[in-house]
């Protein structure tokens, strides 16, 4: 009888421990990646494989290795994302694409139908993917919208923009990533 009670209590403690550990990991690890980028540590960017928002196929970060990559997290309900979208689109068309810089817009914490409508409204032509289930947003520690990261050709994150980017700020970060070795 005593042994049975001990086993049940041990199982319960284990279960509570798992729940607690998971909660602590989610809280403490949530913003770890942006903090590392902000510190200048150039951490390796977490890979993702996400489906295109429109059409078939997917985009992986690994497939863009060797290029500077601008990764922009956004959502259709986010007001600053509406202000930022024309800046990104303009920079993509006039400077980034001709220089071989890749742009990926990751729609996260959003309804995919709303996101498609957003892309049409703002005429976004760079690759847009949908973060099914929000796993990529969590892995990158995205806590507010929009957030933008610049990845160097070695796959390291060299810049992080919490909130709306400016064209000059993003231009400088791209130049830093291109010079990074």
């Amino acid at each position, binding site marked *: *009888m005593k042994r049975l*009670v001990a086993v*049940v*209590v041990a199982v319960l403690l284990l279960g509570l421990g*798992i729940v607690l550990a998971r909660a602590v990991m989610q809280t403490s690890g949530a913003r770890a990646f942006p903090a590392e980028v902000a510190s200048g540590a150039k951490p390796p960017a977490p890979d993702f494989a996400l489906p295109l928002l429109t059409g078939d196929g997917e985009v992986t970060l690994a497939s863009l290795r060797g290029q500077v990559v601008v990764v922009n997290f956004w959502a259709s309900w986010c007001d600053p994302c509406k202000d930022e979208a024309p800046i990104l689109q303009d920079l993509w068309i006039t400077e980034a694409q001709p220089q071989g810089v890749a742009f990926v817009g990751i729609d996260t*914490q*959003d309804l995919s139908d709303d996101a498609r409508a957003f892309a049409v409204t703002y005429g976004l032509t760079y690759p847009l993917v*949908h973060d099914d*289930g*929000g796993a990529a947003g969590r892995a990158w520690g995205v806590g507010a919208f929009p957030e933008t990261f610049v990845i160097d050709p070695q796959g390291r994150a060299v810049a992080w923009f919490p909130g709306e980017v400016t064209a000059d700020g993003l231009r400088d970060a791209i130049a830093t990533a291109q010079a990074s070795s």
Partner: protein
Amino acid sequence: MIRRLFMLLAVMLVLVPLASAAQPQFTMSEIESQLMCPTCQSRLDLSHSPAADRIRAFVEKKRLEGWTAQQVKDALVADFGPSVLAAPPAAGIGLVAWLVPIGAVLVGVGIVIALVLVWRRRRSPARVTEAPSATLGIDARIDAELQRLSDEDA
């Protein structure tokens, strides 16, 4: 006449499923309490963030189209992940959240039963051990008294 009745029947057979399909399968208040706002970590019915408003609009649209609550939840989980559900799924790591409270209640009941049994066991032996000693005391005194009386007679 019979032809008209058949035509009417045919029309009804088409209309009835269409009408029932478009009937809302759930109420907004029911489902809102079962969903979470993904950006503010509170229940959807308690949140007025932009994301929550968009989810609410989506749910209302699908409700009026005749979707079931489960279909709506499945669509939201596909976009937002399982954290959009207020109750964790009874599978994987979510199963722990279901089993731990049930286990805690069972252990609690077990502890109460065990304490009652121990308490009863402690009380019962006390009576058994007291009785013989009391009886023996009386017997001894009776014997002693009888012995004293017989000695006096002698």
